[in-house]
């Protein structure tokens, strides 16, 4: 399980002085943890070690002196040596030498003849002094090496913990920009780490201490700066490792950006494919009917009753018109797709609705009631887009709008012209009223259609500077009502045209 990196706390100077030691592990300190005491010794700790060494030496010497009446003289000397060894093992070289001196003095004073003096009776009495000091040197050196090892192990631990934290922080980065923040928050053992991304190989962080270039596929992408308080931890190897981690994170971020791009591309390709297959279906459907009708007339003309022949011919005409509407939609769509600005003109919506009604497939089955009074309103829109939008809405109403008439209403609302188209179909559930304008959304899959008509209508109205919404019928009867709003044209030019028309 991945655990988020814990907040690091930097021990205060006060804490450091309490410990009497240099606290070097910044990132290892967690709230609640006791500050880890460390590795470099201050003067205070040296004095403390020496005092302890003296105590140990004195204690063992005391034991040796106390036991002297029962044990042999040499044996008591060995007990004193043991004290020196213990002091050396525990407190290092300086302490061990101090301990040996103390041990020698005590031995000389209490045990060596003549006792109770520091005078040496014979040259042979120097032997214990030499023995004590040699023992002290050897054990002290051994203890020192042990301590070095321990220190090295602790350093390695700190580096490792810090690297682990850095790598965790970097692991959660998926964009290149967050790498800088991740590095700053992860920090490093005893150092402030700053990662400065660069573009042209120039180090933007000039002036910061310590600099290490981060290289991704043979290109320097940035510099890692370390403001190191403790160079024992933050050395060149450490920086190299963090640099490698950053490089990895950047590469991963780059890869995931590429994956995201590829997915976006795939989605847009998917959409294009869906659009293309929908369009080719929409084009082929009327074509199939036309070719079947025409070839039927050619092959079976005489065998068919005259009303069937007429109906086949009518079918050819109406399916031809349907093809024309599809191509008009496609042309308008490609005009929108080109991204060129759509010039708007001042139009009479009455003309647009009238020609849309002719173009849509409303013939016998559905009739159109209500109309937009000619000359009552002027709107600013693109004529083709507006007409295609109204055609699509009427078409949609004809297919889904039941058997009743399709009703058209119009009114001015503030600076907007409102065109309402209502049908007598089942209506659109409130939850779906936004969705009907999405591409490939078909509320009733039992009805034919590509799910593009209203989406295209919305696109066209929006391109003309208007809006389109789906609501319920105003009179409370079941049925859908689509309302198109377009800005009314009220500028000087409009009035001029209005005057000309009048």
């Amino acid at each position, binding site marked *: 399980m991945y655990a988020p990196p814990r907040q690091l706390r930097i021990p205060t100077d006060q804490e450091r002085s309490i410990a009497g030691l240099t606290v070097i592990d910044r990132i290892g300190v967690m709230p609640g943890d006791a500050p880890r005491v460390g590795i470099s010794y201050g003067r205070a700790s040296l004095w403390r070690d020496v005092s302890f060494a003296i105590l140990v030496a004195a204690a063992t010497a005391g034991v040796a002196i106390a036991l002297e009446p029962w044990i042999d003289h040499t044996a008591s000397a060995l007990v004193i040596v043991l004290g020196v060894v213990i002091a050396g093992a525990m407190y290092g070289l300086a302490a061990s030498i101090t301990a040996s001196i103390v041990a020698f003095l005590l031995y000389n004073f209490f045990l060596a003849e003549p006792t109770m003096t520091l005078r040496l009776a014979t040259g042979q009495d120097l032997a214990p002094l030499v023995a004590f000091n040699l023992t002290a040197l050897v054990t002290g050196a051994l203890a020192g090496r042990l301590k070095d090892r321990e220190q090295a192990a602790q350093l390695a631990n700190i580096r490792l913990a810090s690297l682990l934290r850095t790598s965790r922080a970097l692991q959660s980065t998926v964009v290149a920009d967050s790498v800088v923040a991740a590095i700053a928050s992860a920090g490093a053992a005893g150092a402030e780490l700053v990662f400065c991304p660069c573009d042209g190989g120039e180090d933007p962080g000039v002036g910061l201490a310590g600099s290490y270039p981060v290289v991704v596929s043979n290109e320097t992408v940035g510099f890692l700066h370390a403001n190191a308080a403790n160079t024992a931890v933050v050395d060149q190897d450490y920086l190299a490792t963090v640099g490698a981690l950053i490089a990895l994170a950047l590469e991963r971020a780059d890869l995931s950006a590429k994956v995201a791009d590829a997915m976006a591309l795939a989605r847009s390709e998917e959409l294009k494919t869906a659009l293309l297959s929908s369009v080719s279906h929409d084009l082929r459907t009327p074509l*199939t*009917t036309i070719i*079947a009708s025409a070839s039927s007339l050619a*092959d079976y003309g005489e065998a068919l009753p005259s009303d069937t022949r007429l109906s*086949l011919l009518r*079918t050819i005409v109406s399916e031809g018109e349907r093809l024309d509407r599809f191509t008009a939609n496609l042309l308008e769509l490609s005009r929108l797709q080109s991204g060129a600005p759509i010039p708007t003109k001042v139009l009479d919506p009455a003309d647009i609705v009238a020609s849309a009604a002719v173009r849509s497939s409303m013939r016998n089955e559905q009739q159109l009631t209500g109309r937009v009074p000619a000359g009552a309103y002027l709107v600013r829109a693109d004529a083709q887009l507006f007409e295609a939008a109204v055609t699509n809405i009427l078409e949609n109403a004809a297919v889904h709008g039941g058997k009743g008439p399709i009703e058209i209403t119009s009114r001015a609302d503030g600076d907007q012209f409102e065109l309402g188209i209502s049908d007598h179909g089942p209506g659109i559930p409130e939850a779906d009223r936004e969705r009907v304008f999405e591409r490939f959304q078909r509320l009733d*899959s039992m009805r*034919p259609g590509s799910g593009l008509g209203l989406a295209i209508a919305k696109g066209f109205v929006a391109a003309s500077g208007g809006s389109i919404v789906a609501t319920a019928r105003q009179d409370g009867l079941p049925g859908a009502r689509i309302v198109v709003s377009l800005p009314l044209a009220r500028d000087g030019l409009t009035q001029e045209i209005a005057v000309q028309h009048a």
Partner: protein
Amino acid sequence: MPDIGGAILVVEDEAALAAVLAPVLTAAGYAVAIAQTAAQARGHLDSYAVDLVLLDLGLPDDDGKSLIEPAAAVGAAVIVISARHQETEKIASLDRGADDYVDKPFEIGVLMARIRAALRRRGNGAGKLNSYTNGPLHVDLKDRRVTLEGHGVRLSPKEWGLLTVLVASAGQVVTHKRLLAAGWGVASTDAQYLRVYMGLLRQKLEEDPSAPRILLTEPGVGYRLAAPSTT
């Protein structure tokens, strides 16, 4: 045109196309019923005798292919109406038991020929045509004889095997799979063999092997032996 007659169920959601097909098929001597959804089609198959189903795959309520088995179960031939590029759909339909397909858009003459071929095969007891004639070519399955303008043509056993299958389904598409199974016994054989052997057959049977008129290729799907000439 001599049509055999029979009951045809047109399963087509596009009302305009159905409205064209119904009167023309009726004029050609068939009894026609129209279903606009898969559910309607199933209902019709359950209640009425149907000789052939003309099936559009893109139905509003279900995949048209799901109607193939129920249609076959009542002994009706199935001709799928599909878009030209939908090769996998065609193959899947044929594998599920459809007899043939016709590409959209189609001319009525092509559709009628497919309908006749499918009904003829049904009428002859599960596809047992004993002979085939097309122009100068005559194939007699009983006597195992192939003649071209009266002269005997020698075929290798594999060529004969392939021709037998094609003659049995004359006028209808035969998938690569079926042909491979017939010629090599294993449907998974490389279709390249098939291409080679069909080339050899064309050399022997076609007037102009480079512009075949009898052994027709259905790209990506299989081969079709042209409908027998009625002379």
